[in-house]
């Protein structure tokens, strides 16, 4: 099909960063009226390809064609002119501006040369309603949760896409209902003849909406094929280049012997943030935290870690009273915390991978017992290897790594401090199958080594796979604690959905 005319096409794209080949002679064609899944491991080059298709990056060599005609896309603005709407991987909107303005920036309705705010806000309300959001369009975007921001980003891209819609991991922070609604919209747009690119690490979602799939591996095009007649195993094999067994899905295991009590939160909470909760955590235990978006899971995690100070209740660590008013207190007690918003709170973009790994350990050691470069390299190298961090060099800035690898770096950062208790907030968000399995394996390993973990995740299958107990949050209140038989998706969903009479705690 070499002469087939595509709505949008990339031909022979090579993209080189420094001396790292991110894309190596990639061809990629989009037909009108199809949903095209773009798959690959972390760092395979998906986001880079997207950025080239939308003019955010220029290819080192190669061509982008729209409707068979070569086009020069010097910036995202031009891409918008060709009717290409894009949701980039990280939420890339403007937290300082209103929701309406984020939706319409650059395309605001005008009257007499001035922006017609009233119309803009009316239109916004309508657009957002389609996604089940009822919020004040004049409110600042930054005051809303990540999920809402993500939906706004999607809505914006859909509004802009006359011909092509590109979604780079749009579902990473959406809950099931929202994903379902997004899929409805995607199907609708497809029926209207749009070409849609869909990047995700959730294979279910790929099979739910996609028609064709293109797989990248290490910057190389592996294959583009129809999804009919393709199995999940095929896809995973193509992505990884080998067979893997997804080791997470162990199902219900026998009750594990519990270690001694490590932490005991009593009526712990913060006014106007999280209702007081009781939670006892043993060594060698993984507490899964389930709940809808915005149910207060992140806030609970932050209180546990002292990022926001609790103002009521008590905490015992190994049987002794402890006060945790700030992260340094928590770290001194052996806590670690991987935040949900990697870019804003996790990585030090301009610092090297090495420094990103050792920084928490160094913070624990203090100002004056500095790790020298060799020690840093040794530590970073050790974790780089054990966590399989893909980086050209440990001295390159972490911002150049793909999302999944950044997450591994942050996990390594805490493991390097030899923690007793780890809080992971959405550790597998935006992570490919291989890395995903690895992180789940790491969680299991850490548990077996006697660590206590609290893991927040929106993926129920995953939570079920590694948790010894599950707590359910609803409306910023801990409403249920599930263990043993009750650790299964059905019960959890019920607990999340139920009002008041949830399953017994």
């Amino acid at each position, binding site marked *: 099909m070499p002469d087939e005319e595509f709505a949008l096409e990339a031909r022979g794209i090579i993209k080189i960063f420094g001396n790292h080949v991110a894309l190596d002679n990639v061809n990629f064609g989009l037909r009108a009226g199809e949903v095209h899944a773009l798959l690959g491991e972390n760092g395979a080059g998906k986001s880079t390809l997207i950025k080239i298709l939308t003019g*955010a990056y220029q290819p080192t060599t190669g061509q982008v064609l729209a409707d068979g005609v070569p086009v020069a896309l010097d*910036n995202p603005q031009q891409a*918008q002119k060709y009717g290409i709407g894009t949701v980039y991987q990280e939420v890339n909107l*403007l937290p300082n501006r209103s929701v309406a303005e984020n939706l319409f920036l650059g395309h605001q309705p005008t009257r007499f040369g001035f922006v017609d705010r009233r119309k803009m806000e009316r239109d916004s309300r309508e657009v957002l309603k389609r996604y089940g959001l009822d919020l004040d369009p004049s409110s600042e975007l930054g005051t809303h949760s990540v999920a809402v921001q993500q939906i706004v980003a999607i809505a914006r891209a859909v509004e802009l896409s006359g011909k092509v819609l590109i979604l780079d991991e749009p579902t990473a922070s959406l809950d099931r209902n929202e994903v379902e609604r997004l899929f409805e919209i995607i199907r609708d747009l497809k029926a209207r003849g749009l070409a849609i690119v869909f990047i995700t690490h959730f294979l279910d979602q790929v099979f739910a909406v996609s028609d064709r799939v293109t797989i990248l591996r290490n910057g190389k095009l592996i294959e583009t094929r129809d999804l009919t007649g393709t199995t999940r195993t095929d896809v995973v094999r193509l992505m990884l280049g080998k067979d893997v067994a997804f080791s997470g899905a162990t199902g219900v295991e026998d009750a594990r012997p519990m270690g001694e009590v490590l932490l005991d939160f009593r009526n712990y909470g913060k006014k106007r943030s999280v209702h007081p909760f009781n939670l006892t955590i043993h060594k060698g235990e993984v507490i899964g935290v389930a709940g809808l978006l915005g149910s207060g899971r992140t806030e609970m995690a932050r209180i546990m870690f002292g990022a926001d100070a609790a103002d009521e209740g008590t905490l015992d660590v190994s049987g002794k009273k402890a006060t945790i008013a700030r992260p340094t207190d928590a770290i001194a007690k052996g806590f670690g915390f991987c935040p949900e918003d990697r870019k804003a709170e996790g990585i030090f973009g301009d610092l090297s991978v090495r420094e990103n790994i050792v920084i928490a350990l160094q913070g624990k050691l203090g100002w004056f017992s500095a790790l020298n470069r060799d020690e840093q390299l040794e530590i970073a190298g050790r974790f780089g290897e054990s966590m399989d961090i893909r980086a050209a060099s440990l001295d390159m800035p972490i911002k150049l790594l793909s999302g999944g690898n950044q997450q591994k770096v942050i996990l390594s950062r805490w493991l390097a401090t030899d923690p007793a208790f780890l809080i992971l907030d959405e550790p597998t968000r935006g992570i490919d199958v291989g890395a995903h399995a690895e992180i789940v394996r790491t969680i299991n390993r850490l548990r077996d080594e006697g660590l206590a973990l609290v893991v927040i995740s929106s993926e129920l299958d995953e939570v079920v796979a590694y948790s010894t107990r599950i707590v359910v949050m609803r409306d910023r209140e801990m409403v249920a604690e599930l263990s043993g038989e009750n650790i299964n998706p059905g019960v959890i969903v019920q607990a999340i959905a139920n009002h008041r009479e949830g399953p017994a705690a």
Partner: protein
Amino acid sequence: MSRSLRPLVATAVIFAIAYALAVMQFPSMFSTRVLGNFLTDNAFLGITAVGMTFVILSGGIDLSVGAVIGFTGVLIAVLISWAGWHPLAAFTMALAVAAAFGGIMGLAIHYLQVPAFIVTLAGMFLARGGASVITRDSVPVNHEFYTWISELIIRLPGGGRLSFIGLLMVAIFILGALVAHRTKFGSYVYALGGNPVSASLMGVPVAQTTVLVYMLSSILAALAGIVFSLYTSAGYPLAAVGVELDAISAVVIGGTLLTGGYGFVLGTFIGVMLLGLVQTYIIFDGTLSSWWTKIVIGALLFLFIVLQRLIFAASAKGEKAS
């Protein structure tokens, strides 16, 4: 009340209280004369500060404005007094030169990816140096047009005067507010200040906006230079030294965040008036020695910033409780 409106209200409240206190001590501070002076005497600062507001909203800073005022004054004076141009022609020339100057700084900031602080610092040296190269003297302007403009005043009861330049400043503030809050360009400026990477991915013409912002700032600085030249009927290479710092202070006191993305043009107006109030108060007091003047200005600056913080924090708490 929207979150970003709060600093604006805080500033307005502080201004009202401060003015009330000053009037209690010196009743003659509440007169049309003093109010008229507020507008006339701060006209050039206000116009400069409008441009500075845009620059700061976009996440940048412009240290060259004071020097541009000085340069413009000299250029105009030389063109009128030595070359015999009509003032309007000289004004047009000055605005054009400033536009080019600002545009070049904007280009350098965007394409060389050099921080605005440094580029505009170089711009400041260049403009100041350029003015001294043209002439080292203060060049007087004697033209009937200048006399005509200076006689364009509305007299108020009680000896107050609304001058042309004072009203011009008010007009620029209104225009500036419209552009910032009601046009696409304005939204691009805020977008740039919020997050330039996002802005670029969302299709904001980053290069064009950056260039336009610095152009606007330089043009308004040149306009301020014209106003300054009308105000003093002369051009002097050392005029308006340090006005950039006053303008930045006014913008920040007016509730605009130096990190960009949040703020109001109207806030800047109150900021300018607040600075004027402080100066007028010190003049009315008349007992402060040179050094105490500096210390008091510093202390008041500190006081306003802290008060604003406190009001901001208090109202932020109030919101969460609701």
